[in-house]
């Protein structure tokens, strides 16, 4: 692909050449380009090129009412939309002092964890595909779809749930919902050994990913890596545990870590996280029937809603890492400023450029996907 503004550069005679990697390629869920400079098969330098999915969310949100933005936020990260909704709602609740009912908090956690499972299943498939294995992606996508079915039942939408609004969630769970989620979790748990056989114990995959794309803990901290990618270097930082929101401090779960910091470690961290998420969901399912009450705190008429003056930097742990919203209200009916700090913003640009450099061409896609970068989050 040669965009019209691409100028063919004449380089000094050398064995090096340039390759446009993207904007459409298997390494990422979305459009994202990488210009890699190669010497033989070795990457000499890389230059990330984003913005293919830029929509100007932050500008759009400044022009819409507080309530209208709830339909906009999930679109910032398509594979894992729930943390976006929750984070935006939490920020507004923080500013305006809305008290979220207990039941809504648990329901949000249930959604967050289901969304995390869905995102990780998608990730397994994608990561395997970058190493040339396509069966896991068939499995992952099909199993993820079962979660989407439950989301559809809960919220009326498969991918964009638009279910969390400031004050709580939009409605209560349907009849028999918890039972069906529980059955789904049983199924997923029973599937895990099969995934192990297919992917995690698969020697092709192990050898392709182990020791590839290594970051050590020092580098990860210096580069601002968060989420599973940081935990794969041995540091057990998780917003859910360290800066708890909703009811995460009442839940019993572990923060899985790995030490080697390679593609393989990152995958394994996510696999363990998926197990932990199932564990959290089980706790929510067990607790939810005993938590009565409303699912939403009354909010003012959305057409005449001035969120009081204030600011909030709210963080949640998305499947990609630390997701934060900075929301600033000057007391108007629209936000004055919303800044979305997508977790991928770190590891999809600077970190990626550094990581692929010195590696081999065939690993570029794998390294990208193993970081689980979400380009719409970067572009916004």
């Amino acid at each position, binding site marked *: 692909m040669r965009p019209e503004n691409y100028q063919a550069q004449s380089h000094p005679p050398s064995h090096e050449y340039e390759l446009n990697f993207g904007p459409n390629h298997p390494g990422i869920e979305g459009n994202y380009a990488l210009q890699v400079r190669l010497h033989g098969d070795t990457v000499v330098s890389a230059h990330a090129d984003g913005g293919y999915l830029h929509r100007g969310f932050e500008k759009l949100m400044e022009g*819409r*009412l507080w*309530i*209208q*933005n*709830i*339909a*906009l936020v999930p679109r910032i990260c398509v594979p894992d939309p729930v943390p976006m909704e929750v984070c935006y709602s939490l920020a507004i609740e923080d500013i305006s002092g809305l008290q979220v009912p207990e039941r809504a908090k648990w329901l949000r956690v249930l959604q967050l964890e289901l969304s995390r499972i869905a995102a990780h299943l998608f990730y397994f498939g994608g990561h395997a595909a970058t190493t040339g294995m396509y069966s896991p992606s068939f499995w992952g996508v*099909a199993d993820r779809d079962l979660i989407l*079915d439950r989301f*559809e*039942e*809960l*919220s*009326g*939408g498969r991918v*964009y749930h*638009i279910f969390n609004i400031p004050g709580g969630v*939009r*409605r*209560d769970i*349907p009849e028999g919902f918890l039972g069906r989620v529980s059955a789904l979790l049983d199924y997923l748990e029973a599937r895990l050994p099969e995934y*192990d*056989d297919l992917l*995690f*114990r698969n*020697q092709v995959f*192990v050898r392709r990913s*182990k020791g590839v794309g290594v970051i050590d803990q020092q580098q990860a901290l210096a580069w601002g890596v968060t989420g599973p990618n940081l935990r794969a270097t041995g540091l057990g930082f998780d917003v859910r545990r360290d800066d708890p929101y909703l009811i995460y401090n009442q839940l019993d779960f*572990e*923060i*899985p*870590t*790995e*030490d080697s910091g390679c593609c*393989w470690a990152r995958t*394994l*961290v996510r*696999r*363990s996280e998926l197990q932990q998420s199932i564990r959290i969901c089980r706790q929510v399912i067990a607790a939810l029937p005993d938590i009565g009450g*409303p*699912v*939403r705190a*009354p*909010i*003012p*008429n*959305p*057409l*005449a*809603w001035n969120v009081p003056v204030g600011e909030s930097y709210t963080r949640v742990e998305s499947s990609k890492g630390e997701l934060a919203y900075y929301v600033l209200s000057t007391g108007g009916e629209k936000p004055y400023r919303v800044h979305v700090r997508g977790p991928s913003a770190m590891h999809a640009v600077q970190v990626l450029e550094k990581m692929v450099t010195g590696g081999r061409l065939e690993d570029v896609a794998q390294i990208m996907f193993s970081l689980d970068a979400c380009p719409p989050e970067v572009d916004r």
Partner: protein
Amino acid sequence: MSSDIDYKDAGSILAPLKNLRFFAREPVTEPLGPRPAAENYRGFHVNDWELCIGCSTCQKVCDNAAISMIHIPGLPNDPVKGVRDHRPAIDYGRCCWCGLCVDICPTGSISLTREYVHTCTEPELDSYFVLPDPNGMHKTHFPKGWSKTEQNDLLDHDRQPMAEMAPEARIGDFAEIVAGYTDQQALLEASRCVQCGMCHDACPTQMHAPDYIRAIWQGNVELAVEEIYRTNPFAHVCGRVCTHKCEDACSIGRRGTPVAIRWLKRYAMDALAPAKVKKIAAKGKSRKKSGRKIAIVGAGPAGMTAAFDLIKQGHAVTVFEALDQAGGMTRYGIPYYRLPSESLQRDIDIIVSLGVEMRYRTRVGVDVSMAELEQEYDAVVLALGLQLGRSTRIPGSDHVQVRAAVDLLRRIAAGESLAVPDKVVVIGGGNVAMDIARTLARLQKQQHGVVGMTVCALEDFAHFLADPEEVRESGEEGIEIIDARGPRHCVVNDDGTLGGLCTWKVLSIFDEQHRFAPKFDESDERIHEAGMVVESIGQMTDTGLLGDELTEALEWNRGRMKVDAFGRTSLPWLWAAGDCVNGPDVVHAVADGHRVATSINEYLTQEVAA
């Protein structure tokens, strides 16, 4: 915690055989063709046209500007009922199926279905613009998906409670019952408004209620008052005793209690210092004097509104009032506990301060004749009001203790002292009947310590004329209201004193042709013991002041002056406005005042041009 996967464990060489078990599994592939969607699915829209009132609230909440309001001729369009012949049409090139339109819809008419497949070619792209009706996008039935429930409803259906005096406290004196909103309450109440504008359309004088409500919500009382003064110089009065057609039309009232538009108006007027109100009222006053003179007979809401408009247009206005003070029926017909005269006086003062010349205690027909007015002024407005009480003319109604309600109210308002017997019966079921009953009950309480008040209404409670609030409050104050009683005669004791009222049970009031022809059950006769009977069955205008000559010259319509749409009578120099034309209602009178003023101004300016 690290994962338990042993990467070195390659497994048995026979491990791939495990995969044979997948042959025994059910395939995950779904059959070709759309699956039924979930119960809550957010698919294409449907809209129940019977329920939809065309309020356009869905349009306002739509984040994608996907909804257009379509004017559809032939649908019911009744501003008074709060129904518009508009229906939302949705652009599926914008819609994101978030369902906010469903959650906010005041009527609950719009909902989403479980239908989700629509494909078209480029020339068929018009099919993306859809006018949802109950049949669905493709006229095939799909069950409803995301629709309104109590949980996802985004509107606040409950009005801010208005603090009012307890019945025991208020029955003892004439203090104003309702306390008015605090700043916080007003703000919360104002925030309930969805800006549909139904109130604006329903209001006789087309008050810009959405605008002043929004201004109140923004905390800008000055702007609110400005919005109010665009159409209503009797806002202190209307903020208290308006018949609030706006609230009947309010779309929030479809499923909840309507926005307290009247109380918000009252709040705005009371919250702003009179000097500032005066300044706002004077805005737009013409500096140029037209040199034309207008006489207005009667200083009630209609007359004073006309005076307000005309003086701002630069004309010289003189108001002739027979009584001591201005206000007309609002002063002499509405009891103090509902409308304190100080509030009324604020409205009057503002209008007078603009330069209106007031001539109190000047009765037209006695102190000055109509012919003189015609001579001296360029135009004359008759805003006479309805001050004469109608009589039932039943046997015994000529007794001295059988009184007319309006007459009593006027006397009480003027400060006359009145001895009230311990038992009183009021005939009538309208607001005036409630007013006099409650006024007299207060006097009874003061004079006797107990309330002994009975109201006999012709109508049954299902068709009652008085406002439900009035009925409720009367009941709280210990007034007995008996519905469906037709007065037969007043019982006069042998000693000449009044003994009470005899009534029959009413079976029906109107005949098949909807004419007034009450039928009674003669077997159900009751005697209501009373030392005074008050008739409150309607009022009429005192047209005696016109003089025979003028009465002859005018055209009449069932006892009322015949006027055109702008209040002009059959004589070119004479206009009539207010209750004497429309029947009793403050806000109608204000609207009438505006109409007449516009018409006069046009007439005068045209005359100059010609």
